[in-house]
């Protein structure tokens, strides 16, 4: 009677650090775990911000250059606009009772999803594992990523 096949796996690559770019990866992983699908997320480049202790509570939303932004790009580039957009978005999310990014990471960790940081990006941004949130399992290379994602569907966000 089970509607899901066994041994399904997803590997999600999170390469952007915006608030609006963090949630899709986190929610997809969470939904996978809830559906009995093994999930792990590979955080690389700007995506590292999502799992960096000092940044996770302060992710912003970039409106400039976003054709869906409710304002002209010229205005969206003004100073403080991304903070404003992030505040608005957080307000909306709270109305929907969405967990914060930090809570999402904790929920994912508890649900058994595995979080990995990209070694090369870590070197580029001069970060070490001590700068990351505790839920990150390991710092791995792209090669390790392919080993881990063997048999998994890969989602790039």
């Amino acid at each position, binding site marked *: 009677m089970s*509607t899901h096949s066994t041994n399904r796996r997803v590997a999600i690559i999170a390469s952007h650090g915006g608030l609006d770019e963090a949630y899709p990866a986190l929610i997809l992983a969470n939904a996978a775990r809830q559906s009995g699908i093994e999930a792990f997320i590979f955080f690389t480049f700007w995506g590292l911000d999502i799992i960096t202790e000092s940044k996770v509570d302060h992710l912003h939303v970039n409106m400039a250059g976003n054709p869906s932004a409710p304002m002209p790009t010229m205005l969206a580039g003004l100073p403080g606009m991304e903070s404003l957009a992030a505040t608005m978005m957080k307000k909306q999310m709270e109305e929907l009772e969405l967990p914060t990014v930090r809570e999402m990471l904790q929920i994912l960790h508890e649900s058994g999803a595995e979080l990995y940081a990209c070694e090369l990006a870590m070197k580029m941004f001069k970060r070490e594992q001590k700068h990351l949130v505790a839920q990150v399992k390991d710092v791995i290379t792209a090669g390790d990523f392919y080993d881990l994602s063997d048999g998994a569907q890969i989602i790039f966000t």
Partner: protein
Amino acid sequence: METPRSDDLAALHARFDALSAQMNLLVERQRKTEEFLDEMSPILKAAVTSAATRLDGLEKKGYFAFGRELLGVGERVVEGFSPDDVRQLGGAVVSILETVRALTQPEVLRVASDASEVLQNAERAEPVGIFGMVRATNDRDVQRGMAVMLELMRHVGRAAAIVKESRAASPLADKRAKLDGILGAKRARTLGVERPAAPAPTAIAPKPIAPVASPSAPPVAACAVPTKGPAPVVTTLDGVGFGADGHLADASQWTRALGEKLAELQGVAMTDAHWALVDAARRDFEATKTSPNIRRLTQVTGVSTKDIYALFPKAPGRTLAKVAGLPKPAGCL
């Protein structure tokens, strides 16, 4: 009787002469003193009168009042400061004097006087908008002035940081307190980040779980959609209808015995902890008409996400809802 000898007489005469000369000198000196006094007294009188007038003038101008006030200030300073303060001030005097010297250098004073000239002619300045500001930045002097101001700001900021460090234990707490002060309670409502962080992970233990849903359970999240009545029946099992997704079509048909059978089909060995969650889910469904998702269950029961995954390892939300005879959990959390 012996007649005086002529040389004795001569000696006596000489002495007498000397004496008279001395007398003359004394008389002369006395006369000079008197003359001096006669000459001086009008001058002295004039001087004293003049001095009195001067002092009176000073008094009128307020010099003495100023002096008296200064004394009062001195007294107040003595009252207000302890010897320790003065000793500390002594340590700072050199740097204060150095600052004063630096501030009173001719170049600095010229800058200040130039600046004050600008302020005096303020009424002649043309109003400038944001584009005027941008245009003004082409001016080399403005550029240099901006560089000086930026450097000044950097120093002020550094000093402020030092003061702050010496005061606050946690810079983050200080920042939050400051923001809260500015924005009031509004911030806590508008920003989701103010909610307490999730508890640290603990070891897996299917420990006994409080079976009662807390009466103060939060309202259902807006992203969760209430169920729209019984689903169309696709298959039946023991006379009970099931929907296309494998969930019980009508939640009201659920019995404990059916739950046991469904759990067996799902491959879950039910314990008290499992039943507590199932009961909580059913009660929440009764109250809200919405099939609870995992996040909702953690909020309602207080059981951690980790424990729920430990009890129902495979797709906990779906499995639990199937065993409890509820529709597919609402929302994507």
